C-alpha cells in the first residue's frame, strides 16, 4: 500500500474525534460519558499515531520523499509575477512525507497521545471535559496539517488553525478574566507574526510564482544567484511569522501568559508542539535562508538574545509554570540560534529532545500543582519528594536532561548547537565579523548555565527540604495569577481522597505513568544524535544523516556538516558540561545546602533594582502597554475623530475664512447673525429637540462637503501621479 493511500488518515482521525466530541459537548444532554469521550479522543489520537508510525517505518525502508496531492484546493490559474514571469497561483491540498515531516509527525502524534492520556487524569474533575478534548483533538489535526502540508499555503492553514485552538484552550477557564486576557494577548501578538508569514507567502508567489516547497526550493537551489537579492526580505518576513508563533523576542510576551490555560495544554501546545512550528518553518525553508547570510545572522542573533533574555527572567520567577514558560522561550531561542548558524539538524534535534523533557517537566509541574491543591508558588512547596515520589523522580530526570548533563537527551542536542555556533567561526574566518559566532557561542554557554541554575532551583525549591505549604490556610493569594480553576478541582478532591487542605499527595497512574514514559524518552532520545567523533568515526550523526535529504545542495554545492577533531569535540563537551555543573552547584548552595535561602536573599537585597527588573520581566509588558497598544488605540481614536469631526472643523473653517475676508457688517455675517438669533430663539423656545435637529442637518451638509472634498482629492491624486509620471518619463 502506498503511503499516500492512508497518510490522510493521520490528520483526519483527530478531526473526526474533534467533531464527535465537539458535537457531544454542544448537544448531548446531561452528564456526558467520560468513557466515551476518552475512547473517542484517545482512540483517534492513538490510531493516528500508529498509522503515522507505519508511514514512518515505510519511509525508513525506502527513504524516498513522497508527495501526494489530494485535491486542487484553489485552482486559481496563472498570472503575471515579478520579472515578467508567469506564476502559477494554484494551491493544491497535498501532504508531503520526508525525513523532516516524519520527525515532526512522530513527535506530534506520540507526545500528543501521551498528553491526551495524562489529561484524562488531570482534567478529570473539570467542567467542560468533553469540550476540552474536542479542542485538543482539533489542535492535533491542525498541527499535523501544518507539518505534513506540501506547500506554504497549507502550512498557513494549519498555522492559523493551531493558533485558534491555542487561544480557545488558553481561555478554557473562561470564567477567569486573566485567562481571557491571556488568550487575547496571544491572539494579537500572533497576528503580527501571521502578517509577516502571509506577506512572505505572497512574496514567494511574487518572486517564485508558486508556494510549493518542492518547486520553490528546486528553483532557489538551482539558480541561487537570481534569488539572492530577494531572499533576505522574504526570509525576514517568514522569520517574523516564526517569531510570533515560536515566542521569540520581541513577540514572546504571550507565551508566559498563555500558562493560564490548563497544564496539559501548556505541555502540548505551549511547550512540545505548536510553539516549535516556527522552528519547523525556518528549517523547512532552509534553502531560502541559506541564500541570505544576513537573514541567518538575524535569526541567530534573535535566537541567542531570546535564549539569554528569557533565561535571566527565569532566574527570579517563583511561579512553577512561569519558570517553565520562560525556560521554553529560552530553549526555543536555542533552536533558532542553531538554525541561524546553519545547524538545521541540530535545531530539529533539540526540538525533539525538548519535546520530551519539557513535556515531562510541564506534566510533572501539573502533577505537583494537582497534588498541592492548585498551588503554583514554589515558595509554598518544598519537600514534595516525600509525598509524590514518582513525580519527583521523573521530574528530576527531566531536570537533569534540560540542564545538559550527559548522557541524557538535552546534553546531546544542546552540545551540538553550541558546537555549531563555535565552528561557525571557522567557516567565516577571514571575514571581518568572524568573531561574531564566538559571541553567539558565549551567549549560548551563559544561557546554558542559567538554564541549569533555574531548573535546579525549581527542583530544590519544589522537591527538597521541608514542605512549606501546610500552614497555609488557603491559596487565594495567587488565585488571580493561577487561572487554573482549582477551586472546583480541589473540591472534587475532598470527595475523592478526603485530604483537602492536608498534605500533598501523589497523582494517579494515568498521570505518573505518562511521566515515566516521557522521562525514559528524556534519557534515550539523545542517543540518535550521538557525536560519532567520540568513537573515532568522522561522519555525521545518525540524526544528521536522517535529515540530510531536506538540506538540498545549493548551486551544486552539497550541504556540509561541521567536522571536528576528537580533541576539539571533547573540549567543547567538557566546557558545556562544566557550565551546566556550575549552574547546578550554585543552585545547590543557594537552595539546598542552606534551607533559609540566605544567599539569594542577600543577592536580591544587594541589587534590588536588578532583582526588580528580573522579577518584572524587564517591564516589557508595561513598555508594550505604553507604546504599541496605546499607540494603536490613539491612532484609531484619531481616525474616528477625523471621521466625525474634521468635517465640522472644515465647515467652521470655511465660515471663519469668509468672515475674515468680508469683514463685519457684510451681508453674509448678517445672514449668520440672523441665523444665530433665530436659532437662539428656537432653542430657547423649543429646547433641545430643535438643537438636535439642527445638528443633524449640519452633519448631512458636512458629509456632502466631505464627498466634494473627496472628488477634489481624487483630482489631486491623479495630477500628482501624472506629474510624477512625467518627471520619471
Amino acid at each position, binding site marked *: 500500500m502506498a503511503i499516500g493511500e492512508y497518510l490522510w488518515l493521520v490528520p483526519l482521525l483527530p478531526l473526526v474525534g474533534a467533531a464527535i466530541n465537539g458535537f457531544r459537548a454542544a448537544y448531548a444532554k446531561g452528564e456526558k460519558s467520560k468513557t466515551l469521550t476518552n475512547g473517542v479522543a484517545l482512540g483517534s489520537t492513538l490510531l493516528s499515531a500508529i498509522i503515522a508510525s507505519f508511514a514512518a517505518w515505510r519511509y525508513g525502508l525506502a527513504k524516498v520523499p513522497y508527495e501526494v496531492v489530494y485535491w486542487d484546493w484553489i485552482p486559481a490559474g496563472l498570472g503575471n509575477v515579478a520579472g515578467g514571469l508567469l506564476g502559477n497561483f494554484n494551491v493544491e491540498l497535498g501532504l508531503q512525507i520526508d525525513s523532516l515531516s516524519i520527525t515532526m509527525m512522530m513527535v506530534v502524534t506520540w507526545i500528543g497521545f501521551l498528553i491526551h492520556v495524562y489529561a484524562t487524569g488531570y482534567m478529570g474533575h473539570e467542567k467542560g471535559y468533553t469540550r476540552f478534548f474536542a479542542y485538543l483533538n482539533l489542535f492535533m489535526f491542525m498541527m499535523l496539517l501544518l507539518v505534513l502540508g506540501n506547500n506554504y499555503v497549507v502550512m498557513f492553514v494549519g498555522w492559523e488553525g493551531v493558533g485558534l485552538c491555542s487561544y480557545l484552550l488558553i481561555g478554557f477557564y473562561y470564567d477567569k478574566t486573566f485567562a481571557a486576557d491571556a488568550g487575547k494577548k496571544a491572539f494579537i501578538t500572533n497576528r503580527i507574526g501571521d502578517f509577516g508569514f502571509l506577506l512572505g507567502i505572497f512574496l514567494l508567489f511574487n518572486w517564485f510564482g508558486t508556494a510549493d516547497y518542492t518547486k520553490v526550493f528546486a528553483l532557489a537551489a538551482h539558480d541561487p544567484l537570481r534569488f539572492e537579492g530577494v531572499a533576505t526580505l522574504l526570509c525576514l518576513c517568514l522569520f517574523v511569522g516564526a517569531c510570533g508563533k515560536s515566542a521569540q523576542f520581541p513577540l514572546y510576551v504571550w507565551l508566559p501568559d498563555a500558562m493560564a490555560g490548563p497544564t496539559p495544554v501548556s505541555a502540548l501546545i505551549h511547550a512540545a508542539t505548536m510553539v516549535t512550528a516556527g522552528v519547523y518553518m525556518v528549517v523547512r525553508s532552509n534553502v531560502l535562508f541559506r541564500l541570505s547570510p544576513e537573514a541567518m545572522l538575524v535569526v541567530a542573533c534573535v535566537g541567542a538574545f531570546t535564549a539569554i533574555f528569557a533565561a535571566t527572567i527565569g532566574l527570579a520567577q517563583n511561579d512553577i509554570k512561569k519558570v517553565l514558560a520562560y525556560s521554553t522561550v529560552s530553549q526555543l531561542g536555542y533552536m533558532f540560534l542553531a538554525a541561524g548558524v546553519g545547524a538545521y539538524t541540530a535545531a530539529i534535534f533539540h526540538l525533539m529532545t525538548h519535546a520530551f523533557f519539557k513535556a515531562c517537566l510541564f506534566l510533572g509541574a501539573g502533577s505537583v500543582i494537582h497534588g498541592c491543591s492548585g498551588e503554583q508558588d514554589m515558595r509554598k512547596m518544598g519537600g514534595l519528594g516525600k509525598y509524590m515520589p514518582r513525580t519527583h523522580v521523573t521530574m528530576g530526570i527531566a531536570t537533569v536532561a534540560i540542564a545538559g548533563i550527559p548522557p541524557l537527551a538535552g546534553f546531546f542536542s544542546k552540545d551540538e548547537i553550541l558546537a555549531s555556533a563555535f565552528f561557525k567561526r571557522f567557516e567565516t574566518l577571514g571575514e571581518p565579523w568572524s568573531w561574531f559566532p564566538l559571541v553567539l557561542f558565549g551567549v549560548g554557554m551563559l544561557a546554558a548555565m542559567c538554564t541549569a541554575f533555574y531548573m535546579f532551583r525549581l527542583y530544590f525549591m519544589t522537591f527538597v527540604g521541608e514542605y512549606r505549604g501546610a500552614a497555609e490556610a488557603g491559596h487565594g493569594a495567587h488565585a488571580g495569577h493561577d487561572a487554573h480553576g482549582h477551586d472546583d478541582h480541589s473540591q472534587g478532591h475532598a470527595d475523592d481522597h478526603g485530604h483537602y487542605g492536608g498534605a500533598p499527595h501523589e497523582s494517579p497512574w494515568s498521570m505518573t505513568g505518562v511521566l515515566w514514559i516521557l522521562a525514559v524518552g528524556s534519557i534515550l532520545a539523545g542517543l540518535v544524535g550521538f557525536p560519532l567523533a567520540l568513537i573515532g568515526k568522522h561522519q555525521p550523526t545518525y540524526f544528521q544523516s536522517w535529515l540530510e535529504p531536506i538540506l538540498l545542495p545549493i548551486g551544486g554545492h552539497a550541504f556540509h556538516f561541521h567536522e571536528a577533531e576528537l580533541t576539539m569535540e571533547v573540549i567543547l563537551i567538557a566546557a558545556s558540561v562544566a557550565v551546566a555543573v556550575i549552574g547546578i552547584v550554585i543552585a545547590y548552595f543557594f537552595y539546598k545546602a542552606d534551607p533559609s535561602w540566605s544567599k539569594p536573599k542577600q543577592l536580591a537585597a544587594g541589587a534590588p533594582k536588578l532583582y526588580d527588573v528580573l522579577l518584572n520581566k524587564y517591564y516589557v509588558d508595561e513598555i508594550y502597554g505604553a507604546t504599541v497598544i496605546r499607540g494603536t488605540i490613539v491612532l484609531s481614536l484619531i481616525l474616528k475623530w477625523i471621521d466625525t469631526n474634521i468635517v465640522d472643523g472644515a465647515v467652521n473653517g470655511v465660515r471663519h475664512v469668509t468672515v475674515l475676508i468680508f469683514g463685519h*457688517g*457684510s*451681508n453674509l455675517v*448678517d445672514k449668520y*447673525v*440672523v441665523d444665530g*438669533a433665530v436659532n437662539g430663539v*428656537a432653542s430657547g423656545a*423649543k429646547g433641545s429637540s430643535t438643537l438636535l435637529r439642527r445638528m443633524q442637518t449640519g452633519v448631512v451638509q458636512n458629509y456632502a462637503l466631505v464627498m466634494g472634498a473627496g472628488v477634489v482629492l481624487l483630482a489631486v491624486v491623479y495630477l500628482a501621479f501624472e506629474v510624477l509620471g512625467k518627471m520619471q518619463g
Partner: protein
Amino acid sequence: MANYSILLIAFLIVLSVPVLTIFLIAPLVRASRPSKVKLEPYECGVEPASVAFDHRFSVRYFLVAVLFIIFDVETIFLFPWAIRLEQLGWFGAIEMAIFIAILLVGYFYAWKRKVLTWV
C-alpha cells in the same frame, strides 16, 4: 476634438455673476446699518409671532404634491410619444399602455391607501 476650455470659461462666468453681485458689489454699494429690528425675519413692521418654518403644514399637502409631480412628469413622456405615434405604431401603443398601467398601479395604491381623502 472639441475644446472643453470654452465650457470651463462659461462655467466660470455663470458662477461669477451671483458671487460678484452678492458678495462683492452689493456690500460695496449698499449702506449697511443693522439694527435689531432689521435683523429679524419678516421686516414689515410686525413682531414675529413665532419662528420661521415653525408653522405645521398637514402632511397631506406633501402627499398631494408628490402625486401631482408624478402625474405631471408622466405628461412629459406622453408628448414625444404622441408626436411620433404614427412611426411607433402598435408597438409604441402597447409600450405606452404598459407605462400608464404601471402608473395606474401606483395611483390605485395611493387611492386605496386613502391618500386622496382629506381628513
